[in-house]
């Protein structure tokens, strides 16, 4: 048992996630080879479809590392999309102004939630539950209609195909298909890398790990726990709004029913990626792989073609259980040592 001490729990959980992703993906390439699962585009679609989710999961990882949770993000995303639609289509705002406004809303949202959680010491679950209801309600108040976003600048950014002039294949309709991504993918990946650096190499980031690991000792070490927590939620609100904009670039519409359960997808992604719900442990790249595992399962189901798409949920449930059990085993082992 002594040997376990030398193994970094963190890295081990992350390694399992990454290995699992590649095993699943390669299995998919073998099973669905004839249907074209091995095409680079299928891989890129994992990012194209989930750009918003990746950013939200990154932000969720940070919140979970500090020992909190934020279940308001799904509603905030819906509200962001609705505000974008309303401002651009009904109020004739420009695309950039609307996006800045949405980011501002995200910061306000995060500040209020962060203040209540850190300075008034209220359970993050309850506060963000309130935030979840508020966001969804406000979305419906702005409009219960679907708003289709046709703003030229916004469409141009969202739909700018960045083609990779390699691995082109001729499809049977006689079109040359090159793999492509949208700008949203690049934005998501940049944020992922920035957040990785922030969490790993800045004072702020290391404080987050310290507080999540043990709040008491972090306080004794002289860290400003309340302030750090507050800023984590502010940053979380800001990132959630970026996620909302990226989500909107994919759906190009504002609608009250949008992004329902998005927060749970983000939490699932983070947990599968090795983030502990108890705090102190987590890695944004793990969450990326968590989201990609989910995306791969979705692709499996849709390539298979006859299965009910609810199998995605069932599979995710099994994976979550698997990872939670694994985590608790590790913690037991750690405690023994």
């Amino acid at each position, binding site marked *: 048992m002594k040997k376990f001490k030398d193994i970094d729990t963190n890295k081990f959980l992350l390694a399992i996630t990454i290995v699992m992703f590649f095993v699943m993906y390669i299995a998919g390439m073998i099973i669905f080879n004839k*249907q074209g699962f091995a095409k680079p585009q299928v891989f890129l679609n994992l990012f194209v479809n989930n750009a918003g989710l990746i950013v939200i999961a990154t932000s969720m990882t940070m919140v979970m590392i500090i020992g909190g949770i934020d279940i308001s993000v799904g509603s905030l995303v819906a509200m962001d999309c609705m505000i974008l639609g309303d401002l651009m289509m009904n109020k004739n705002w420009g695309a950039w102004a609307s996006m800045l406004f949405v980011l501002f809303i995200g910061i306000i949202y995060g500040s209020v939630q962060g203040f209540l959680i850190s300075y008034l010491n209220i359970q993050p679950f309850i506060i963000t539950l309130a935030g979840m209801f508020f966001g969804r309600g406000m979305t419906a108040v702005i409009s219960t209609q679907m708003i289709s976003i046709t703003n030229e600048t916004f469409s141009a950014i969202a739909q700018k195909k960045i083609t990779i002039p390699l691995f082109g294949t001729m499809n049977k309709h006689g079109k040359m298909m090159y793999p492509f991504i949208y700008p949203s993918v690049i934005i998501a990946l940049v944020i992922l890398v920035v957040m990785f650096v922030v969490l790993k190499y800045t004072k702020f980031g290391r404080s987050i790990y310290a507080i999540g690991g043990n709040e008491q000792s972090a306080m004794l070490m002289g860290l400003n726990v309340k302030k750090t927590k507050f800023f984590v939620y502010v940053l979380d609100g800001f990132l959630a709004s970026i996620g909302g904009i990226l989500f909107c670039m994919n759906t190009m519409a504002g609608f009250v029913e949008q992004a329902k359960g998005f927060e749970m997808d983000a939490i699932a992604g983070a947990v599968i990626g090795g983030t502990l719900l108890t705090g102190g442990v987590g890695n944004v790249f793990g969450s990326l792989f968590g989201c990609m595992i989910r995306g791969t399962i979705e692709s499996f189901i*849709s390539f298979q073609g006859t299965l009910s798409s609810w199998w995605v949920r069932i599979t995710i449930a099994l994976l979550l259980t698997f990872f939670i059990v694994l985590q608790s085993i590790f913690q037991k082992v750690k405690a023994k040592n």
Partner: protein
Amino acid sequence: MKRKALAIFMCTAMAAGIMTGCGSSSSAPSEAPAASEAPAASEAASTEAAASEAASTEAAGSEAASTEAAAESESAADEVAKNDGDVLNIGFAQVGAESDWRTACTDSVKSAFSAENGYNLIFNDAQQKQENQIKAIRDFISQDVDYIILDPVTETGWDQPLQEAADAGIPVIVVDRMVDVSDSSLYTAWIGSDFELEGKKACAYLKAYLEAKGYTDAVNIVDIQGTIGASAQIGRTAAFDAAAEENGWNVVSQQTGEFTQAKGQEVMESILKQSDDVNVVYCENDNEAFGARDAIEAAGKKVGTDIANGDILIMSFDATNAGLTDTLDGSILVNTECNPLYGPVLTQYVQKLKAGETLDHDSYIAESQFSADDTVTSVNVDGTDYPVTLLTQDVLDARAY
């Protein structure tokens, strides 16, 4: 020490790899064929038979007996892929399974595009989420399907995925709900219900019925509307408003019942409290009609067609099985259909496209009207006669949903 730790790490990682390998094959897609082992194998067998490859049929048969789930799914996938040449691959992105109507629509499409008919239908249930449907479209494009059928969750936000389909040269047929795109050439054709015509037919029926019965007193009519903003509500209400004005019907009240039985009942109860001379109720779907019926009976009034003697007449839409059952026993006088059976017309569309013909860009699916009363046999709307189907138990039993 470090090397030992590394060795243990590697071992556990490999063990985990094996475990997860099994995990993924048992929990991910391969489980499907495992669960529905028999159908998958029989499907493979039948398509093989169509291609008259007796040898592979035998192989498929013997493999069906094997219990290896992973091998099973692989072979099933291969069998389908082998026939790529003669089988048309159709991607069908469906809204979900939120109502009987939707399920009837799904079943109709599934049975029309069956393997026996020479199709490989790739079905995707979006669980009422547009983002899932966008993913499904992208997956269809990656699979290089021949045609995509889209029953959109929302009307908005389709420019990007439809543009991707257009770039891949894959025709998209939109059914049921419209898509709101900047360029309507992004989809090949749309087919759906003409809700306004449904409303007009219902109103024309009421007019003809009252004339035939020689009823000339005031028609005090209530409109229990659908969910405001839904295209079914917009079309049916518009037809109602026009007909009420044209025929001089007295509109007692016009409120939304949100397409639900509970809300329909609540609305009808409050209307009956305020006025006791209501004699016709125009419900914009079957569920609202059930609610209205209950409210009328609870208020001590009679549901029926003899409105000269205090009965209250109910009209309804959708013609679901439950709705038609009520139509058969006479509590709903006339039920105008909203046809979910898109399968046959879609196969025609696909065959036409395959033959290189062009389709009508926007068209309506044929819909009928049902009544158990034979007073009115056809209605005339804008110069066209539409027959009214006399509802009997046999007609009801023969319907697919």
